[in-house]
């Protein structure tokens, strides 16, 4: 299986991190604020206290938009 595949945006790219990993630890490691992203694991939205299993595919989706609406 080997690690967790993470899809990042703006720009779109992929990184691999060792798993299992807690959501909060993953965001810390990648330098994201929790308030600025959603974490979607294998297509399902997860909360900040979740742990991501090895072999999962994760999307870290930014939610902060630049236009004022």
């Amino acid at each position, binding site marked *: 299986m080997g690690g967790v595949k993470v899809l990042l945006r*703006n720009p779109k790219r992929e990184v691999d991190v060792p798993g299992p990993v807690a959501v909060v630890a993953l965001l810390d490691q990648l330098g994201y604020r929790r308030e600025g*992203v959603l974490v979607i694991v294998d297509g399902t*939205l997860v909360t900040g206290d979740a742990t991501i299993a090895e072999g999962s595919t994760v999307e870290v989706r930014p939610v902060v938009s630049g236009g004022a*609406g």
Partner: protein
Amino acid sequence: MRCRVCRKPAVIDVRRHNAGFCPDCFFDHCRHQVERAIADHAMIATGERVLVAVSGGKDSLALWDLLLELGHRADGLYIGLGIEGYSEPSGEYARSFAARRGVHLVEVDLPSDYGFDVRSGAAASRRAPCSACGLSKRHIFDRATLEGGYDVVATGHNLDDEAAVLLGNVLRWDLAYLARQRPVLPGGEGFPRKVKPLVRLGERETAAYCVLRGIDYQVEECPMAVGNKHLGYKDALNAIEERSPGTKATFYVGFLERASELVAHVGEHEREGLHPCPGCGAPTTAPSCAFCRLVARAGDQRRQRIPLDQPVSAS
């Protein structure tokens, strides 16, 4: 984490409410927040026709969906801005939503209808791209709302947008902008009522709403907005929010409850000099309105570069 309401597994945590929600209870939460904003600020009366300004992003599509769910008569308005690689997919998200929900989408295209795009408009008028974009959108929202016989135009400004704008206005002590920063701007001669029903929801909530409802939206950031001041204010507020959840809501709601009235009179005299623009009829204090001046400069320039018989957008 368990849902605060029903104790099922939670899929979204909202730290300022110190709560997690399962999908169904989260939808209830979002509907309740929008219902409350509409009621508290008398935004939309029963039976009124609403035009929702739709960009194809999470906020405007969540807003449109929530208004329909709450039983409002809501059409959408999509404005093609001619931003290469961004506007076309954004328009597709708006069209797909409209088709899926069986609702009407009004479309206006800056390049084909006015002869310029955001980039050329910004260059010709020596404005920042976000300024030329905002000016164009506000003008077209007003015009489409009035010409379409709608009672009100609704925009997807959320709690994070409003808190960031408030921070910017306070940092400059711009009292005239503070006076206009309200969830409802009443209509008048030549301009419709404007409402912001998402002011009680953060952008993390509107994004989660779309994901959970299966609404596809433009996730990529507008290439013109990268590095703008607004994003800097949001980042600063999110750094504070991370340590003290609820700060953004307290900042914005506190302004509305305790400070908004104190500055409400600022700039009132400017409305006394308003007259209809000879070009388009929109109210202005200048000989012609800012949008007509933009079209006069940028429209011509664009025509020199891209003939209008070569469409630059599919809409």
